C-alpha cells in the first residue's frame, strides 16, 4: 500500500482511538453534550416539519378554485336564486352549490358531535345560508368575489386568496419564531459544548503535557477533541431528528383528522431525509466550531 496512505490511515486511527478513549473516560459529559445538541436539532426538525406542513396547506388552498359566499339573514330565496342565475350566466363558474341554514346546521352538528355544549348553543337561525362556488379558472376567483361583494344580500365572501394570505402571515410568524428559537438554542449549544470540551481538556491536562513532552504537535492533541465535538453533533442531530420523527408519527392521526382533506400526510421520505442530511451537516459545523473554540481557548 502507498506509504502516505498508510501514514494517513495511521493518524486517523490514532485520532479516533484517542477520541473514543476521551469519551469513555467521561461518559456523563459526553451524554450532556449529545443531549444539548439533541434538543437543538429536535426543535430544528419540528420547525422544519411545521414549515413543510404550512407550505402544503398553502398549496392546497392556492389550488382550490372556490369562493364561499355567506348570505345575510334577511336574504330571500328568490334573491338568492336570481344571484345564482346571474353567476351561471357569467360563464366563469363551474358549479354552484347552495347550502341552506338547515344544511349548515347539519354540517355544524356533524363537525361538533363530540361537544354537546357547542351543539346546544347553535341553532339554524344563527347560521348563514351560503353558496360554494367553483370557478372554471383560479384567475376568475377575484372577479367573482368582487362582483358578489357588491350584492346587497351578501354578508361575507371568503375565497382562497384571503385564506392563503392569512396562512402566509402565520407561516412567516412561525418561521421567525423558529429562527429565533433555533438561534438561541444553537448559541446555547455552542457555549455548553465549549465548556464541556474545556472541562475534558482540563481533566486531561497531565496527559496532554506528557504528549507534548514526547513530541506531540498541537494539532495531534487538538484533533481528537475536535472530532469528539463533531461526533457529539452528528449523534445529537440524528437523535433529535429521530425524536421529532417519532413525535410526528405519534401526532399524525390527530393532525390528519384536524386537517381533513388537506394532503399534508404522509410527509415524503425524501423530504425527511433531506432534513436529516442538512441537520447532520449543520451538526458537523456546530460540533466542529464549538470544539475548535474550546481547543483554541484551552490548548494554547
Amino acid at each position, binding site marked *: 500500500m502507498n506509504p502516505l496512505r498508510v501514514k494517513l490511515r*495511521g*493518524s486517523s486511527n490514532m485520532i479516533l482511538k484517542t477520541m473514543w478513549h476521551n469519551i469513555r473516560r467521561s461518559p456523563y459529559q459526553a451524554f450532556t453534550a449529545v443531549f444539548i445538541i439533541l434538543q437543538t436539532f429536535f426543535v430544528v426538525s419540528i420547525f422544519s416539519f411545521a414549515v413543510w406542513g404550512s407550505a402544503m396547506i398553502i398549496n392546497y388552498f392556492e389550488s382550490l378554485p372556490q369562493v364561499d359566499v355567506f348570505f345575510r339573514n334577511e336574504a330571500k330565496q328568490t334573491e338568492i336564486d336570481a344571484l345564482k342565475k346571474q353567476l351561471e350566466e357569467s360563464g366563469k363558474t363551474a358549479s354552484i352549490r347552495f347550502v341552506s341554514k338547515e344544511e349548515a346546521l347539519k354540517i355544524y352538528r356533524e363537525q361538533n358531535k363530540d361537544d354537546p355544549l357547542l351543539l346546544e348553543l347553535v341553532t339554524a337561525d344563527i347560521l348563514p345560508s351560503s353558496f360554494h362556488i367553483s370557478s372554471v379558472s383560479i384567475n376568475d376567483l377575484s372577479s367573482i368575489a368582487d362582483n358578489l361583494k357588491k350584492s346587497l344580500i351578501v354578508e361575507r365572501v371568503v375565497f382562497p386568496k384571503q385564506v392563503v394570505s392569512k396562512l402566509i402571515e402565520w407561516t412567516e410568524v412561525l418561521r421567525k419564531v423558529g429562527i429565533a428559537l433555533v438561534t438561541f438554542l444553537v448559541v446555547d449549544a455552542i457555549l455548553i459544548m465549549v465548556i464541556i470540551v474545556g472541562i475534558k481538556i482540563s481533566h486531561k491536562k497531565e496527559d496532554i503535557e*506528557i504528549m507534548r513532552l514526547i513530541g506531540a504537535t498541537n494539532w495531534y492533541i487538538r484533533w481528537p477533541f475536535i472530532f469528539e465535538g463533531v461526533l457529539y453533533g452528528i449523534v445529537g442531530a440524528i437523535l433529535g431528528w429521530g425524536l421529532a420523527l417519532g413525535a410526528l408519527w405519534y401526532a399524525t392521526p390527530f393532525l390528519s383528522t384536524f386537517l381533513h382533506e388537506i394532503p399534508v400526510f404522509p410527509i415524503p421520505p425524501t423530504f425527511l431525509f433531506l432534513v436529516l442530511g442538512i441537520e447532520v451537516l449543520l451538526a458537523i459545523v456546530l460540533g466542529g466550531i464549538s470544539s475548535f473554540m474550546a481547543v483554541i481557548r484551552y490548548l494554547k
Partner: protein
Amino acid sequence: MTCMIKLDKVSKKYGTGVFALSEINFSVDKGEFVFLVGPTGSGKTTIFRLLIRDLLPSTGSITVADFDIVKLPHGKIPTLRKKIGFVFQDLKLLLDQTIFENIALSLEIAKVPKADIKKRVEEALEKVGIINHKDKFPIQLSGGELQRAAIARALVLSPDIVLADEPTGNLDLETSWEIVKLLESINEKGTTIIMATHNTEIVKNLSKRVIGLDKGRLVRDEPPSRKASGVK
C-alpha cells in the same frame, strides 16, 4: 568527535528573580555518557528542560543535534523532542494506558505505521527486560519496572540523545545498578546519554565524565576516571 549538545554562557533566571543557572558552558560529544551531578535544586532538571525547549534560557545559546534551541520556531519543537529520549524524574507514564500503549504513544505521535508499532514496542520492551508486563497498567508494576518502562519509551524512537533525570532516584541500590547497566548498554550502541543523579555510589563506580552543578553554577567537569571500579 561530533558535538551533540553545546551550552554557551547559558543562564536561566526565573520570574521570581532566582537564578536557576548562571553562565553554564559545556558540550557533549556524540556517543558520550555523562553524569550530571549536584544536590537538589542545583539546576540539573532546568538544564534538561532547556535541552528539550520546555524552557528558554534568559541568556546564552544552546545547540542540540543541530537545533538552535533559542531560535527554534515553535512548530519545530515536536521534531526536536522526537530526537531526544527523555526519562522523566516522575516517569510521566499515562496511568490509564497499558505499558504497551504508553510506549506505542511515542511511535503514534511520530506517525510510525501501525504495522511497525507492535514490533518496535516489543523490541524496546525486550531490550529493557519487561516484555512480560506489556499488557499491565503502570499501577501494577514495581518502581524498577516502571523506570524500565520509561526508558523503553525514551528508546523506542531510536533517539540520538537520551536524557535521564534521576532514573535511580527512588530505587534500591541493586535495581539502580540494573538501570544504570541498561543505560550503559544503550550508550555502547552509540546513543549519547546524560544522566542526572545525586547517587555518588554509582558515579564513583563508573568511569564516566562527570559534570557537577551547585546552586546553578558549573563546579566540576571531569573526564572519565581510570580508577573507577566498574559496574557491580
